[in-house]
């Protein structure tokens, strides 16, 4: 009963179009006020203590690092390196785009940021090289989604905040599915390019490759800093995020010299703006999940599902459908923060691995970012290419379908996600 009241209030408030953070907060306030004796003052305190966790602070750091990398010329050099490596195969620049996105994803934690960084340089170049507009848009929109699957990943940090799963283990778990998805997307690109005979680049000589590698090595080293640092235990994930922000700043300003000090202030302000928005959603989502737990809703849901003999396979299918539907209305961080606390206890009772469940959610979020009505990647790509959303939707279909197929594989083959962290002894 209480559960349905909470959800109806939340749903109605959200659909009026007010910010998600506000609708979460108002739901909690009105529920507490009308149905419980919990003092409202505790809400104010929770708004502060809700984000008083050092793990959460990885989010602003990763956003800052990502912004420095995007503006600081790292993306451009990674594209050059990727082009010199795979540009001569079928798909040429398209394939290079997939590789560049995967490389950039390994230093950035956000999908739309990856699309901005790679797409704004590569998409115009692809059109110039003779690719149809929609081919380039399709490749980059979907490959950009790798940003949240290949570690570091802001969405994974959100999941770990919501469920108390280890961020390090989640990051490691994302590596193999990330490479897998990159290969799937690359395969689709290769196949379609061969079918329609799109232009290829001239094969780069060894010298050119070496030069491209040397130029991009500063960006590539960051992968080692973040992943190596977390794995070896030198840094906690939050410290690794802070280190990568400082490193990215250093590379952008002093090594590549693409960023002036004035730009730095703007990058800081932009990052603070975006982080504050996400942190504000987190605070309110923490409040919301506090209410949920207080009312025992996740437990009740778990019991109901188990009582109806719902097995793991049916549950995972249901989770996928729910998350894909939610992907039509909200952006990934909010979905993870709202749904993870509800679904997680059920998954635990069914014996699903917490890390596997996290990766599954992340891949789901990726799909949601690539289709309308709210796919962020799609809107970013539309901003860059000036193509309409409808046209772009058609353009991404081949890649989106293969992504859905990949989602099914990730859902039902848990070893894909759990093997690496288990082997490394992180879980």
């Amino acid at each position, binding site marked *: 009963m209480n559960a349905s009241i909470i959800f109806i209030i939340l749903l109605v408030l959200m659909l009026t179009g007010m910010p998600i953070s506000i609708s979460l907060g108002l739901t909690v306030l009105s529920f507490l006020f009308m149905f419980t004796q919990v003092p409202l003052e505790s809400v104010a305190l929770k708004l502060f203590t809700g984000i008083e966790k050092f793990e959460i602070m990885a989010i602003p750091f990763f956003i800052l690092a990502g912004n420095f990398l995007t503006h600081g010329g790292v993306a451009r050099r990674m594209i050059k390196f990727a082009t010199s490596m795979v540009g001569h195969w079928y798909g040429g620049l398209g394939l290079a785009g997939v590789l560049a996105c995967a490389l950039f994803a390994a230093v950035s934690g956000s999908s739309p940021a990856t699309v901005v960084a790679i797409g704004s340089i590569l998409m115009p170049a692809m059109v110039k090289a003779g690719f149809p507009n929609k081919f380039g848009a399709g490749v980059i929109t979907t490959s950009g989604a790798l940003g949240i699957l290949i570690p570091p990943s802001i969405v994974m940090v959100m999941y770990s905040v919501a469920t108390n799963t280890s961020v390090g283990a989640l990051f490691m778990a994302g590596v193999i599915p990330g490479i897998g998805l990159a290969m799937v997307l690359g395969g689709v690109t290769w196949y379609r390019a061969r079918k329609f005979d799109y232009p290829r680049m001239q094969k780069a000589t060894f010298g050119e490759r070496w030069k491209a590698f040397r130029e991009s090595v500063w960006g590539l080293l960051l992968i080692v800093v973040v992943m190596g640092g977390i794995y070896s235990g030198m840094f906690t994930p939050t410290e690794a995020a802070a*280190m990568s922000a400082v490193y990215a700043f250093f590379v952008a300003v002093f090594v590549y010299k693409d960023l002036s000090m004035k730009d730095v202030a703007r990058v800081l302000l932009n990052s603070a703006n975006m982080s504050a928005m996400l942190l504000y959603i987190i605070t309110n989502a923490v409040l919301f999940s506090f209410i949920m737990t207080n009312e025992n809703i996740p437990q009740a849901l778990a019991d109901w599902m188990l009582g109806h003999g719902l097995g793991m396979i049916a549950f995972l299918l249901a989770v996928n459908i729910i998350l894909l539907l939610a992907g039509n209305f909200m952006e990934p961080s909010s979905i993870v923060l709202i749904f993870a606390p509800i679904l997680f206890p059920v998954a635990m009772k069914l014996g699903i691995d917490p890390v596997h469940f996290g990766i599954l959610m992340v891949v789901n979020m990726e799909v949601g970012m690539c289709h309308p009505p709210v796919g962020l990647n799609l809107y970013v790509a539309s901003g860059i290419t000036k193509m309409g959303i409808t046209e772009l939707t058609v353009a991404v279909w081949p890649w989106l379908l293969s992504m859905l197929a990949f989602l099914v594989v990730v859902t039902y083959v848990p070893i894909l996600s759990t093997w690496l962290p288990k082997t490394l002894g992180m879980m």
Partner: protein
Amino acid sequence: MKLLDHLEEWLITFLMAAATTIIFASVVHRYLSGVSIPGLQDWLLSLNFGWAQELCIIMFVWMAKFGAAYGVRTGIHVGVDVLINRMTGRTRAKFVVFGLLAGALFTGIVGTLGAHFVWENGFHYALYTALGKDLVDIPEGPTTPDLEWPTWIVYSAIPLGSSLMCFRFLQVTVSFIRTGELPHHDHGHVDGIDETTIAEEVNAFQMEDNLHPHDLTYRKRHPEDSSGQGGKQS
């Protein structure tokens, strides 16, 4: 007003930069103090960075509260606007105003609750001590574990930030009613592959997508989008 705007921007920019520097310094300190360089090591060991995490958290919470207020002004907060963006301009405008006022209501309530909390948490004591009044039955507030700052100062981010946010919501509401415009980010053009290109024009989370409501001037800027017309146009 201009001053307040700038103050807000400076504060969150500074907090972002400072928090990053502090964590960086504490990590560097941790590793350098393990290296035996005569003189330097002793000096490093004498420094204590135990407070770094706590300070970083406090700074980011402050940044989050004031940044959220700044975010109202820049229109970055995401919502579920799929439904209302399909409505016609006038109906949508009503929902937009409702949403903005709801934001003002929530932040207003939280600001008040927060102020009350901070008062009880030691501000009362501190104020009366400062004024030299007698302290009958007023408890001194607690302090934070590492820095040992009074918590009421730390927690005052809630009333201050929320009130500012409430004010920003009201400000945006007024300007929306007057001009029909919401803060939005117009993505300008993005140049091709050229050495000077900086990918900055497209700012994810600040686009006119279905995570943000379209305002009344949206049609003029996006003539290609026929949704929000209550059906197809010929």
